[in-house]
C-alpha cells in the first residue's frame, strides 16, 4: 500500500474552476483519508485473520511435512478425527431436517407465538457455549435429574458420544433455520397453494415445489452448521470428559496436545481444522453467488 498521495498531480477530469493548488490539496486530503481507511482495514485483516492462519501452517510444518503427517497418523489423532466426523454426521442431518421444518412453520404460517419461536431458535447463539454444555450435564450427568435412572439402565450420555452430539446439536441448531426463514417468508406460499389446487399432496408439494426453491439456501445453512459442528469447543468441552482416544473431538484434542507441549501435533490437527475452514469459506462464496442468482430471478 502506497500512501504517497501528496505528490499526485491533479487529474485531468477535475473541474478547473478552483485554482489548481486548492484542488490538489482537496484531492490529496480525500485520497489520504480513503487510503488510510483502506490501509487500516487491510492491516487489521492481515494481523487478525491472515497471520494466525499462516502461523498455524508454519508451526505445523516446522519439523517438516513428515512430522506433521506422523502426528495426524497417531491413533489418538485418528480417534479424534473419527469422533468429530461422527458427531457432525449425526448432528448436521438432524439439524438440517429440524431447521427446515422450523423455518417452514415460521416462514409460511401466521400463528400466535411465531415471533417468540423465531427468537427461541436463535437462543443458542446468545447463550455462552459453556452453558450449552452444562445443561446436558445437569440433566444427564451422574448427579443430574436423570443421572440415577440412566446409571441404573447403564446408559451413558454425558462423557460419551450422545452427550457430544446433543451439545453440538444445541449449539448449531440456528444455522439452517436462520438461513431459510427470511427466504421462505419472501417467497410466500403462492407456489405451494398453486400446487394444492393442481392436486398435489403434502409430500409432492414439499419435494417438487418447496424443497427445490430452498435447496441452495438450505445447503448454505448446512455448510455453516457443519463448520461449527466440527469446530465447536466450549459446549463439547463440558460434556466430553476429556478421555483421550475416546471422547476428544479435534478441537479438544488440539487443546490437549497444546497443554502437553506437543506443538507439532497440536498445530497439525489445527491445520486440518483450518483447511476445513478454508474449504467452507470457498463453498460459502459459491453458494452465496448461487443464492443471489436465484433470488434475483424470482418469477
Amino acid at each position, binding site marked *: 500500500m502506497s500512501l504517497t498521495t501528496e505528490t499526485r498531480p491533479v487529474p485531468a477530469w477535475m473541474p478547473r474552476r478552483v485554482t489548481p493548488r486548492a484542488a490538489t490539496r482537496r484531492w490529496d486530503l480525500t485520497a489520504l483519508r480513503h487510503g488510510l481507511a483502506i490501509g487500516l482495514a487491510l492491516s487489521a485483516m492481515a494481523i487478525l485473520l491472515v497471520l494466525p492462519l499462516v502461523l498455524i501452517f508454519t508451526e505445523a510444518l516446522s519439523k517438516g511435512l513428515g512430522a506433521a503427517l506422523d502426528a495426524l497418523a497417531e491413533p489418538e489423532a485418528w480417534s479424534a478425527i473419527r469422533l468429530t466426523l461422527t458427531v457432525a454426521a449425526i448432528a448436521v442431518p438432524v439439524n438440517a431436517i429440524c431447521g427446515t421444518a422450523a423455518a417452514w412453520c415460521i416462514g409460511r404460517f401466521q400463528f400466535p407465538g411465531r415471533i417468540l419461536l423465531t427468537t427461541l431458535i436463535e437462543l443458542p447463539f446468545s447463550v455462552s457455549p459453556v452453558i450449552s454444555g452444562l445443561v446436558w450435564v445437569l440433566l444427564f450427568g451422574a448427579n443430574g435429574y436423570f443421572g440415577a435412572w440412566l446409571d441404573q439402565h447403564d446408559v451413558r450420555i454425558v462423557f460419551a458420544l450422545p452427550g457430544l452430539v446433543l451439545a453440538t446439536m444445541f449449539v448449531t441448531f440456528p444455522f439452517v433455520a436462520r438461513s431459510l426463514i427470511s427466504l421462505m417468508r419472501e417467497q410466500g406460499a403462492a407456489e405451494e397453494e398453486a400446487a394444492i389446487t393442481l392436486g398435489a399432496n403434502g409430500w409432492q408439494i414439499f419435494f417438487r415445489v418447496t424443497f427445490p426453491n430452498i435447496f441452495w439456501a438450505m445447503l448454505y445453512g448446512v455448510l455453516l452448521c457443519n463448520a461449527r459442528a466440527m469446530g465447536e469447543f466450549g459446549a463439547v468441552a463440558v460434556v466430553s470428559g476429556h478421555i483421550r482416544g475416546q471422547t476428544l473431538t479435534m478441537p479438544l484434542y488440539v487443546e490437549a496436545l497444546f497443554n502437553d507441549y506437543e506443538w507439532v501435533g497440536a498445530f497439525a490437527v489445527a491445520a486440518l481444522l483450518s483447511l476445513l475452514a478454508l474449504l467452507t469459506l470457498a463453498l460459502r462464496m459459491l453458494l452465496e453467488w448461487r443464492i443471489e442468482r436465484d433470488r434475483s430471478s424470482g*418469477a
Partner: protein
Amino acid sequence: MMVEMRDLRKLFGATPALDGLSLSVRKGEFLALLGPSGSGKTTLLRVLAGLDFVSFGSIEIGGRPIQDVPARERRIGLVFQHYALFRHMTVARNVAFGLEVRPRRDRPPAAVIRERVAELLEMMEIGGLGDRYPDQISGGQRQRVALARALAVEPTLLLLDEPFGALDAKVRRNLRVWLRALHDRMGLTSIFVTHDQAEALEMADRIAVLRAGRIEQVDTPDGVYRHPANDFVREFMN
C-alpha cells in the same frame, strides 16, 4: 346451476370478509366479481378453491357440497394474481405438474402428458416456450402459462384472480379478447375477479358487484350499467 353459494360468512379478526354472500353461477358462464379492494373478491375465490374456509354457509358445485372436499380434490383451476408459476421448472414442466402429481392409476403415460402439454401451449399461442423458465418470459406469456397449467387438469370451474392486473395496457386489451374467446371455445365455466369496471363490462356474461363482503347487484353488464341497484353500484360503474 353450476356453482351455488349460500349465505357465506367469514371473519378476518373483527371485520367480515364475507358477510352473508349468496351467488349462483351458471354452467358455461363467464362471471365477473367486481368491487373495490377489500370487498371480499379474492377471499371468495380462495374459499371456492379450498385455500380458505368460511365460518358459515354452504357451497355446492354441480349439485355436490364441497366444504369437506380438500382443495387438492376439488378440480378447480385457479390462476393467481401473480401467476405463482413454479420458478425452478420449465414452462412445460409447470403445465405438466397437475398431471404428473396424480396417483399412478390416474396418471396418463409420459408421452400422453407431453402431447397434452404441447397441445395446451399451442392453444395458448406460446408453443415455442416449453423449455424456458418463468423468469425468461414476459408477463403476458407467464399469464398464458398459468392459464395452461390450470387448464391441464381439466377443471370443472376456472377461477381467475385479477388476471390482467400485472400487465401493461396494450397486452391487457389483447389478452381480454383472447381469453374470452378461449372460454367460449373450450366451454369453460369461469369466475374472474377484477376491480376494473371496463374489463368486467367488456368480458363478462354477468357481473356481481361486491362491497364489504356482500353482493350489491348481479346482472348482465348492460343491466348493471343502465339500471344500477343503488348509489354504490352507480358510482362504482362510472
